[in-house]
């Protein structure tokens, strides 16, 4: 049996899945001040339907904890220590009110250009003691190519200030983009104590219940991460909500088509794309607190229209309001909503259709419009906004930068196959959106709990990225921040570099219990450069990326329509 729990902003959903069907679903209001309580309550309710605890094999949690901590400013005060070297001015980095700069510079080949100023580090440690700051994030430009400066800073800081918790950027992400690395490291350091606490509590509760299931956290990319591994990478857990519904759409459709996934929530709708059955990722990484990060995330567009968005007539204009006042009138609410307009006009017979008419009529009277015209106007407004946003997404995807001739000549083109509706209000709205896009709608009887299902059946993901410089005999590996000297790579060809990356993927994947999926790896990046000095080759540079892409666990074979 599988359990998936998705904590949303308003509601928390849970599903218990067995064989080919959902055995039980739970929906509870989310208490944002006590997320672990909500999760454990939903878990208890689901477990009530389980004959024996031992039959639960896997539990996946999708939680907003980290996002909430950062958004509400409850992360711990953290010093951001930067070693930016030369390039952009220091004023370009305004992430933290406690930002400190150190001298020292590394170049793109990982060579030291300027030594670290050790005395500066020591006086900074003393300064941090005075300020009472207990955590520090350290990030150096090109530390992904040579981590020695970051390591030295950590060593010197700890020497002067043993209680300081230090997080290094090369450990959090080893990819190019210093500001994103700094931001990701800073946020990681900020939320780390709360996240450790959360993991401890969940582990304790599961132990008390005698559960032996493997526990995963859903990541922003639509894959899962074993709970113990998440201790090191708490930021990977952000934006798992849209990832859950996108994976839910994949779980309901189970094929390789191009789908637009629209999760119609209470007050917002999230749009994502499945390209040949794989969620489309945001090219620049997730954006957190206005900063780009190195967190891989499903590319999501949110618009402020949901099923419960109230309708109003004010200042001579018919409007859809952004804030929720409660459920749709047909479901007992006290205001006419977007759902009511679709319900009445399209005769959908959702809830009490007479209530839909009654509340819509009040607005129609105010606007001095015919009831049908009022509904048509709302429907047009919703459908137009959604289809326009969709077209923008396609265009953006087609216009993503490309750096090879091949990629330009074989131009990207996206042909939509269908629209998958997720969320309770999808049933009303999605068919009309699909019609305006000229494709078929896809609504499943489990569309309203697809997010929790998506979490339950998402498989773990892992991307391994290697940068090899045979002239300098260096090998940099992501994740893990390993930068090592390797004398054995001097004669490497692209195939050898690829094999090395795959070897690392297998080693790391096995350590994460991903054995079942490793043979399904894909190479997503392969670049090789001959280094020519004078007129002869002095070495090669390889960039290779291999991954286990988002997908569904093997045990899941679909759900009955």
């Amino acid at each position, binding site marked *: 049996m599988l359990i998936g729990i998705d904590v949303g902003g308003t509601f928390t959903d849970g599903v218990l899945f067995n064989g080919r069907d959902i055995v039980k679903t739970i929906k509870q209001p989310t208490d944002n001040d006590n997320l672990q309580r909500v999760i454990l309550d939903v878990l208890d309710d689901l477990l009530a339907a389980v004959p024996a605890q031992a039959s639960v094999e896997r539990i996946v949690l999708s939680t907003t904890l980290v996002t909430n901590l950062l958004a509400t400013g409850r992360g711990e005060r953290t010093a951001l220590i930067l070693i930016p070297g*030369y390039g952009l001015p220091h004023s370009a980095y305004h992430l933290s009110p406690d930002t400190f700069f150190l001298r020292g510079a590394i170049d793109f080949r990982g060579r030291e250009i300027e030594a670290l100023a050790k005395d500066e580090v020591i006086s900074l440690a003393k300064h941090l003691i005075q300020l009472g700051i207990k955590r520090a994030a350290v990030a150096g430009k090109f530390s992904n190519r040579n981590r020695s400066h970051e390591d030295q800073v950590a060593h010197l800081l700890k020497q002067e200030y043993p209680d300081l918790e230090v997080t290094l950027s090369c450990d959090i992400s080893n990819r190019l983009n210093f500001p994103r690395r700094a931001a990701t490291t800073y946020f990681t350091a900020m939320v780390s104590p709360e996240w450790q606490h959360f993991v401890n509590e969940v582990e304790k509760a599961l132990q008390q219940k005698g559960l032996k299931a493997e526990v995963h956290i859903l990541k922003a990319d639509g894959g899962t991460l074993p709970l113990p591994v998440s201790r090191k990478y708490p930021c990977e857990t952000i934006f798992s909500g849209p990832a859950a519904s996108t994976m839910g759409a994949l779980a309901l459709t189970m094929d390789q088509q191009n789908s637009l996934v629209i999760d119609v929530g209470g007050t917002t709708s999230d749009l994502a794309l499945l390209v040949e059955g794989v969620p489309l990722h945001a090219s620049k990484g997730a954006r957190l607190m206005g900063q780009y990060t190195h967190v891989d995330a499903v590319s999501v567009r949110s618009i402020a229209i949901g099923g419960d968005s109230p309708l109003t007539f004010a200042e001579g204009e018919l409007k859809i309001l952004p804030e929720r006042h409660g459920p749709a009138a047909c479901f007992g609410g006290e205001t006419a909503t977007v759902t009511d307009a679709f319900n009445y006009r399209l005769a959908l017979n959702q809830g009490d259709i007479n209530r839909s008419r009654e509340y819509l009529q009040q607005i129609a009277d105010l606007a001095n419009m015919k009831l049908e015209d009022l509904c048509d106007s709302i429907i047009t407004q919703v459908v137009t906004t959604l289809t326009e946003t969709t077209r923008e997404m396609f265009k953006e995807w087609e216009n993503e*930068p490309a750096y090879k001739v091949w990629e*330009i000549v074989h131009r990207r083109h996206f042909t939509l196959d269908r629209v998958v509706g997720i969320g309770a209000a999808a049933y009303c709205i999605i068919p009309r959106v699909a019609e305006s896009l000229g494709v078929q709608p896809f609504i499943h009887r489990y569309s309203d709990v697809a997010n929790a299902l998506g979490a339950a059946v998402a498989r773990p993901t892992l991307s391994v990225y290697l940068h090899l410089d045979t002239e300098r005999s260096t090998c940099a590996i992501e994740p893990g921040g390993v930068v090592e000297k390797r004398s054995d790579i001097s004669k490497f060809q692209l195939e050898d570099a690829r094999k090395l990356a795959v070897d690392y993927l297998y080693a790391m994947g096995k350590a994460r219990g991903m054995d079942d999926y490793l043979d399904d790896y894909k190479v997503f990046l392969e670049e090789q450069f001959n280094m020519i000095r004078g007129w002869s080759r002095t070495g090669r540079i390889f960039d290779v990326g291999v991954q286990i892409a988002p997908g569904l666990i093997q045990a899941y074979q679909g759900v009955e329509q």
Partner: protein
Amino acid sequence: MKPTGLLFFPAFDWAISPTHPEREERLLYTRDQLFEEGIMDLPGIKEYKPRLAEPIDIAAVHFSVPDLDAHLLEAHFVAAGSTLVIADAFMKGEIKNGFAIIRPPGHHAMSVTHGNRGFCNINNEAIMIEYLRYHYGLKKIAVIDTDVHHGDGTQEIYWDDPDVLYISFHQDGRTLYPGSGFVDEAGGPLAYGTTINVPLMPKTTDEGIHYVIDNLVLPLLEEFKPDLVINSAGQDNHYTDPLADMRFTAQGYATLNHKLAPDIAVLEGGYSVETALPYINMGIIMAMAGLDYSNLREPDYARENFKESPRNLELIKRIVEVQLDRFRTRQEEIEKNRRSKGEFFSEYRRIFYDTDYIHEEQQVRLRNCPHCCGFRMIESSAQQRNGKYYRVMCISVPINCCPTCREQAISHYQDLTRSSRYDYVYLQDRIERQYRVCQPDLEREDIIK
């Protein structure tokens, strides 16, 4: 505030040959530097994706003998198309200025092309200029060529066009490829003074180059009042460039772009792939985006190494003086030329293609028109790299041409299509955007679309 447009196209899968300076590795470290700095994430930067130029865009500039497919690879279409993407973004007002960091380069490619010259097959800037003139109606354009090599291709294409001001400073042609760009090369008889060359002695530093910018380039732009300023942004004046011998720095390049404030910059040469390009490209981007670039420098930069010699500075001052005067008195010179006898100006020239080792011979005729800058007829012959010999006639009607010249040009073309003197006869009519290729022997005519 509008962002700066950036189109980064390193062509990581294209090289002239594996060990050639124009190889995959060229922009690798620039990629590393730009990406590590997170330059594309800045709110003041908008990144664009390349597109393929259409054959018609290229035919607006070049007579590719015998046809476009003979010399052009997909990489060339992408590089040229990239400049058009930036041009569109600029003209539509999406960006305040734009920089196309692209390869392969183009400023040595001339109107007629039998192969590759100086790593260039087609002239990216000229293709962009003709695109802008036709689609957006721009009239006067200034090209400032900041590559260390004289941009003989761009100079030749606009030699007879008084509406394109071409200014190039470069290492003296006696000491560097392509061996041209001397002070007296000042434009054709009806476009005299809008080609301005400033040959500089080897080892000229930031100080010398900035003297040229401050005292010649900026005043000329002020007087010429172009609709658009283009920086043909080579990066090989740098003190570490392996193919040239100048002493320019990344700070020097950044300051140059700050002063020049080009609307569009297009990468040309620059082959110090590790020690110059990452820093110069950063500098140009930062200057164009209005960012503080004072924290930018090369790892081995030491200020004391970049002092200009008084003797060289004196020489530069003299050149600047001569060129200022030439530009300011150009109309008188042109009027004098117009009064000369004969309907056509005629010139014979030989062109050497270093990369492909081709010797081309040209007879160029320009109509001495009282109303416009005339139309050009170029008779060209060369044995190409594959051993084939071609003798062709290329007739060009510029966009600022008068109706009489245009009619005459078309009538010349029609006459020649009925004779068998040439293997190919080309008509390039920029006014109607009509590009024809005729093979008289086969009685075949193609229209490039």
